C-alpha cells in the first residue's frame, strides 16, 4: 500500500537501533516503514510529521496497552534530528480492505464476518474499558495475522486534548465509517460501535451503507438517511439497524453487545429490539463542499490512565454558539472520586440535604450509643450533656463537610490545594462553634492524658491552646482546622467513592486526629472521638452510588446537563 515518496530510503538508519527496509504507508500524519531492529525484531516505525505533540500524547496513552487484538505500540523515540518515531508491532497479514477487494468483492460469508467482528469487538471493548475511543475504525486499519484480528492505528489522533482544538478542523476518521454525532463534536465510544456496524454492513454486502459523490453528501446521508437494510440477511437487519442508530443513546452500547446480538440473531434467538426514538432531522451540510465540514471542538479533557478518563468535546460552527456540552465517557473501573461529572446545582443541593438529614440520624445514634456504653462517663450527672455537646459538634462538622465537599463533587482534580484551604477554614469555623457549644452547655472535655502534659505544644506564639486542662478557643480552632485540612474529605463524601464505609479510612482519620491531639494538647479521647465520629457520620450519610449504577448515573447527569 505504498503511496507517494518516502523520506528515508531502504537500509537507512535514521533511528538508532533500527534499519529501515521499506516504506509501507504515507499519509497526513506521517510515514510508516517496515524496519528491523539491531536484534532482528520486525517492527513498524511511524515517523510523525504533523501534530507531533498531539500524536505523541495520544500514543503515550496507549503505550502500555496489551491485547491480542490490538497492534502493540512498543515505544516512542526521538532521533538525532529531534523527530518523533513510534515503534509498533509489525503485522504482516493482509488488511481487511485487501481481503474484501481480493476475495469477497460481493460480501463475506456470515461466519467469516462473525470471525472479524469477534476480534474487533474484543479489541475495541478493551480500549473502551480504558477510556479510549479509537475513532478511526475502518477496514484499512484491521489486519489478520496468524488467525488473530488486529486493530491498528490505535492511539494516533484519537484522544482529544484541549491543546488539540486547532487540529480538529480537518477530517476525523474516514467519512464512510463516520458516526453522525462526530459532526456535532461528540466522540463517545458509540462512534466506534457505529463504525464497526458500518464495517459489518460492508463485509456482509460488499459495499458501505452510505455512498456519495462527495464527502459532504456522504456525511449528509450519515446524518439524515436510514441505511438500506434490504441487502442484509433478514435476521441481521434489526441488529444492524440498532447499531447504526443516528442517536448514540439509542445505539448498541458496546461492541460486545453488538456481537451478542449478532450471535443471537444467527442462532434464531430474539435479538434485542432496537429502540428507535424519534430522530429529529439533522442540519443539512452545505452541498458541494469538498472538505468534511467538521467544525472545531471547543472543549475536551483528557486524563491519564489510572484515573478518570474523559473523552469529549463540544462543538461549534464558526460564528455559532456551541451546539452541545461535551459528552463524557468513563470506563467502568474509573468511576471513582474526582471523576468529572455534570452534576446540576439542584442535584447537588438534593444530595447535600439528603446527607445532612441522614447525618442527624447517624449522629443521634452514635451519641446515644456512646452514652449508653459509658463513653461520656458512667455515673456522672454531666454525661448526657457531654453526649449532646459531642453529638452537636460532630453534626456541625459532618454538615460542614457534606455541604463543602458536595460543591466540588465531579469538578475533577483541579484546585486540590484550594479545597484543602477551604476545608481548613471550614474546620476552624466548626472548631469555634464546638468551643462555643461546650462553653454554653458548661461541659468540659475529658482531662489531658498524662502523656500530654510535657514536651508537646501547648501554645503557638501568643496563642494559648490549653488552659486549666481544657482546650481554649484557639485549641479547638486549630484542632478542627487541621483535622479538616489534612484529610481528603472529598473522598469520604463523593458519591463515586469505592465503598460507602471504608474502615481503613476511618482508622487513618482516627490516627490523624490522635496525632493532632498529641501535638496540640487536645484531649486524646475527644480528639479520637471526633475524628472517628465525623468520619463515620460523613461516610454513612453522604449519598453513594453503587458501582453497577454509575454508568447509568453518568448518562443521566449528561442527559440532564445537555
Amino acid at each position, binding site marked *: 500500500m505504498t503511496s507517494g515518496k518516502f523520506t528515508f530510503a531502504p537500509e537507512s538508519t535514521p533511528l538508532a537501533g533500527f534499519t529501515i527496509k521499506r516504506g509501507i504507508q504515507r499519509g497526513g500524519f506521517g510515514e510508516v516503514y517496515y524496519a528491523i531492529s539491531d536484534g532482528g525484531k520486525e517492527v513498524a516505525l511511524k515517523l510523525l510529521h504533523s501534530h507531533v505533540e498531539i500524536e505523541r500524547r495520544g500514543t503515550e496513552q496507549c503505550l502500555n496497552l496489551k491485547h491480542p487484538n490490538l497492534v502493540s505500540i512498543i515505544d516512542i523515540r526521538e532521533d538525532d534530528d529531534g523527530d518523533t518515531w513510534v515503534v509498533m508491532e509489525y503485522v504482516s497479514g493482509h488488511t481487511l480492505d485487501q481481503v474484501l477487494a481480493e476475495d469477497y468483492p460481493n460480501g463475506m460469508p456470515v461466519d467469516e464476518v462473525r470471525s472479524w467482528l469477534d476480534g474487533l469487538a474484543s479489541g475495541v471493548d478493551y480500549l473502551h474499558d480504558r477510556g479510549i475511543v479509537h475513532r478511526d475504525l475502518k477496514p484499512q486499519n484491521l489486519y489478520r495475522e496468524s488467525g488473530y484480528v488486529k486493530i491498528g492505528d490505535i492511539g494516533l489522533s484519537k484522544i482529544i486534548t484541549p491543546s488539540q482544538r486547532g487540529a480538529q478542523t480537518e477530517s476525523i476518521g474516514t467519512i464512510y465509517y463516520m458516526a453522525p454525532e462526530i459532526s456535532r463534536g461528540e466522540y463517545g465510544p458509540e462512534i466506534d460501535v457505529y463504525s464497526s456496524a458500518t464495517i459489518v454492513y460492508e463485509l456482509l454486502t460488499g459495499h458501505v451503507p452510505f455512498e456519495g459523490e462527495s464527502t459532504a453528501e456522504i456525511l449528509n446521508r450519515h446524518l439524515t438517511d436510514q441505511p438500506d437494510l434490504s441487502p442484509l440477511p433478514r435476521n441481521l437487519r434489526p441488529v444492524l439497524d440498532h447499531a447504526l442508530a443516528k442517536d448514540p443513546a439509542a445505539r448498541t452500547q458496546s461492541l460486545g453487545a453488538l456481537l451478542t446480538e449478532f450471535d443471537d440473531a444467527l442462532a434464531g434467538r430474539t435479538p434485542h429490539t432496537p429502540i428507535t426514538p424519534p430522530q429529529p432531522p439533522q442540519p443539512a451540510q452545505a452541498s458541494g463542499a469538498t472538505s468534511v465540514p467538521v467544525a472545531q471542538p471547543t472543549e475536551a479533557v483528557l486524563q491519564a490512565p489510572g484515573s478518570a478518563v474523559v473523552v469529549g468535546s463540544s462543538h461549534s460552527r464558526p460564528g455559532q454558539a456551541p451546539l452541545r456540552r461535551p459528552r463524557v465517557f468513563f470506563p467502568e473501573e474509573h468511576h471513582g472520586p474526582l471523576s468529572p461529572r455534570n452534576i446540576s446545582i*439542584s442535584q*447537588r443541593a438534593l444530595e447535600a440535604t439528603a446527607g445532612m*438529614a441522614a447525618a442527624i440520624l447517624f449522629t443521634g445514634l452514635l451519641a446515644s450509643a456512646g452514652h449508653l456504653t459509658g463513653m461520656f462517663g458512667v455515673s456522672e450527672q*454531666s454525661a448526657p450533656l457531654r453526649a449532646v455537646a459531642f453529638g452537636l459538634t460532630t453534626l456541625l462538622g459532618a454538615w460542614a463537610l457534606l455541604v463543602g465537599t458536595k460543591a466540588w463533587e465531579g469538578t475533577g482534580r483541579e*484546585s486540590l490545594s484550594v*479545597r484543602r484551604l*477551604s476545608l481548613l477554614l471550614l474546620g476552624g469555623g466548626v472548631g469555634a462553634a464546638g468551643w462555643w457549644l461546650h462553653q454554653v452547655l458548661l461541659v468540659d472535655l475529658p482531662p489531658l492524658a498524662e502523656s500530654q502534659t510535657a514536651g508537646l505544644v501547648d501554645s503557638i506564639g501568643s*496563642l494559648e491552646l490549653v488552659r486549666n486542662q481544657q482546650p481554649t478557643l484557639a485549641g479547638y*480552632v486549630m484542632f478542627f482546622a487541621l483535622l479538616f485540612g489534612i484529610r481528603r474529605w472529598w473522598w469520604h463524601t463523593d458519591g463515586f467513592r469505592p465503598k460507602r464505609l471504608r474502615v481503613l479510612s476511618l482508622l487513618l482519620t482516627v490516627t490523624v486526629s490522635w496525632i493532632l491531639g498529641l501535638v496540640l494538647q487536645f484531649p486524646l479521647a475527644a480528639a479520637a472521638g471526633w475524628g472517628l465520629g465525623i468520619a463515620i457520620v460523613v461516610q454513612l450519610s453522604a449519598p453513594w452510588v453503587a458501582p453497577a449504577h454509575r454508568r447509568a448515573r453518568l448518562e443521566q447527569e449528561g442527559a440532564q446537563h445537555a
Partner: protein
Amino acid sequence: MPSLPGIATGLGAAGSVEHVATWVISLLVLAAAIAIRVAWAGRRGSSDLRTLLRTTVPAAWFVPAAAIVIAVATQASPSLEPPQAPAILSQPNRPNTLPSITGHSWTSQSLTEQDDSGRTLVLTPIASKPHATAKEARQEALQLAALRLKYEVERVYGQAGDWELSGEALDQQKFITNEITSTRPYKLSSLAPSSEMYHCVVRLEVSDASRNWASGYWKQSVGANRLKTIGTITGLLCLLIVTTHLYLRLDIASRGTHRGKLQLASVAVVAAAGLVASTLLSA
C-alpha cells in the same frame, strides 16, 4: 486591617467570647465563598449576573425560611451566654450576727485547716436570724450557706445562667460539718411579753471538694436548662434541612411544575415550627 499577631492575640485572649460569633461567621463565609467559587469554576459556569440570578432565584424561598430560624436563635441567644470570666464579687449576703453559744466555740469564728491532701479548707459558721420555730431557723441557715457556696463557685469559675443551690443538698453532701440550734428570749415590742426565738448556726466547709460539687451542680442545672434551648434551635435547624430536602426532591420529581406551591408550603412549615419554637423558648 488587623495584624496577624493582633488576630492571634484576639483568638487566644481570655475575653474572646464576644469575638467568637465574628470568627465563626467570617471563617464559614470565607470557606463557603471559596467552595462556591471553585465549584462554579469547576462546572465552567458563567459568572454573568443573569445566569447567577437565574440559578439562584428558585432557591430564594430559603431566605425567609432561614430568617425564621435565625430570628428564633436570636431570641434565645441572651440565655446562651458563655460563662463570664471570674470577677471580684461582693458577698451575696451580710452575715448575721453570730450568736455566742456556750461550749460551741466554732459558732463564733472561722477556722482554716488542711485536708488529707494538704489543701486548705475553711470552716465557716453561718447563723440564721431569730425565728419562731427551729425548722425555720435551720432552713434559713442552710440557705445562707448555699448562697455562700454559690458565691465561691462564681468567684472561681465565673457566672453563667440562673441557678440556685439547695441547702438541704449541701447538708446531704456533708459540707455542713456542724449545726446547732439555740433559743433566746426576744421582745418583739415593748408592750409584748418576751418569747423564746430560735437561732440556728451551721458550719460550712469551703474547700475544693465543696466548690467542685457545687460547680458540678451549677453546670448540670444550667446546662440542662440550656439544653432545652439548644435542642429547640437544633430541631428547628434540622426541620429546615429536612424541609429543604423534601422541597428539592418534590420539585425535581415534578420537574418544577409545582415550584411556587412547594415554596409556599416549605416556608409555611418552617414558619409554623418557628412559632412553636418561639413559644417554647418564651415559656
